[in-house]
């Protein structure tokens, strides 16, 4: 805190360079999507300078890896003096995943949550599209999948299993 308070405030150009550097940091579990597209990087605070990040799930084991990767990227881009701060509030929601992030998830074989779904319904009663064949004839196999943020689904048309980002 004291270090941050003593540092010079960031100008708009510096903020842009920081966000550009972080846009190249992949999520450790789903490397096709960046920590910015996933909504984990909340933004840059100019004064006192800080990069603000938030965990997806409070027990997500990737949180420390993400913080480390963000730190390394900042150092490499010449922003070693900018600290990384973790925010809990407001809590992360799948609505913060960017459009580009949603496209990348789909290409990777993970069904992204529809925009605004977290606000509408947690149970996700709306149709879920198979990321492989596009069919909506799909079913939930397990609400808990390979990571805390994903559920396991199966497509009844192409019979393939797939991961779905939990609406949250």
């Amino acid at each position, binding site marked *: 805190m004291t270090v941050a308070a003593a540092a010079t405030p960031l100008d708009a150009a510096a903020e842009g360079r920081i966000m550009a550097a972080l846009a190249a940091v992949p999520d450790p579990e789903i490397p096709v999507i960046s920590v910015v597209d996933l909504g984990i990087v909340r933004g840059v605070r100019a004064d006192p300078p800080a990069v603000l990040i938030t965990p997806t799930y409070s*027990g*997500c*084991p990737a949180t420390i890896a993400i913080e480390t990767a963000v730190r390394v990227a900042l150092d490499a881009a010449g922003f070693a003096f900018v600290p990384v701060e973790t925010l*809990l509030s407001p*809590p992360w929601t799948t609505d913060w995943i960017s459009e580009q992030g949603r496209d990348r998830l789909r290409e990777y074989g993970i069904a992204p949550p529809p925009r605004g779904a977290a606000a509408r319904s*947690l149970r996700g009663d709306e149709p879920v599209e198979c990321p492989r064949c596009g069919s909506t004839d799909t079913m939930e196999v397990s609400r*808990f999948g390979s990571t805390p943020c994903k559920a396991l689904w199966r497509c009844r048309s192409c019979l393939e299993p797939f991961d779905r980002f939990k609406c949250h």
Partner: protein
Amino acid sequence: MAANPHLFDYLLRLGDDGLILGQRLTEWCGHAPALEVDLGLANLGLDLIGQATLLLGLAGEVEGKGRDADRLAFHRDVLAYRNCLLVEQPNGDFAQTIARQFLFSTARHALLEGLTASAEPRLAEIAAKAVKEVRYHVDLAADWVIRLGDGTGESRRRMIEGLDWFWRFVDEMFDMDPVEQALAAEGIAVDRTALRPGFDAKVNAVLTEATLPAPVYPRAVRGGRIGHHTEHLGHLLATMQFLPRTYPEAVW
């Protein structure tokens, strides 16, 4: 404003409940009846331990003696633990584990909902994060209570036995004492007694759907909040704390 002297104790109660049940759930890892259940229980444990890390971290901050979440989790003895008795009980069979999870998550969800409006903003933040996760836990456990209760003769018998066994630990989750009354008066804690009718209604609704009778009401047992634990907690801690106590400065 000086922190309420009871806040540290309250945060330990909240954190220890999650930590101890999270540790219990990890015992299922690799042993659950199906892969999906294995993943589910491990994820629940992960959420609970993550929430405990936040709560115990805040407890350490409030205490101001330099103890962090790890210090509080791994270097406290059984008498200093403040979890309720329900969470430290052995897993038993799968139906017992589900009974315990259903009762705990239902009570915890109501508590966290209330805490999102806590006058202590750092606690309200943690609650807002955790309440979204615990809603999934309630759904998972309730689905299984219905599936086992309305299932085969054996699954039904085991579900009834599981609920009967754990019912004696329910009252303690709704107890108020001077610590929590003082905090509730300041708007920091939630009045647990006010949560009971909602809890009973939710439990009754699920039991009805599961075609299960109301649990047999045995004498309630309590004592965890003042450190009077059952024999099981010490054994759990011996496993959980072994590594950091044997190699106190170990990091990885």
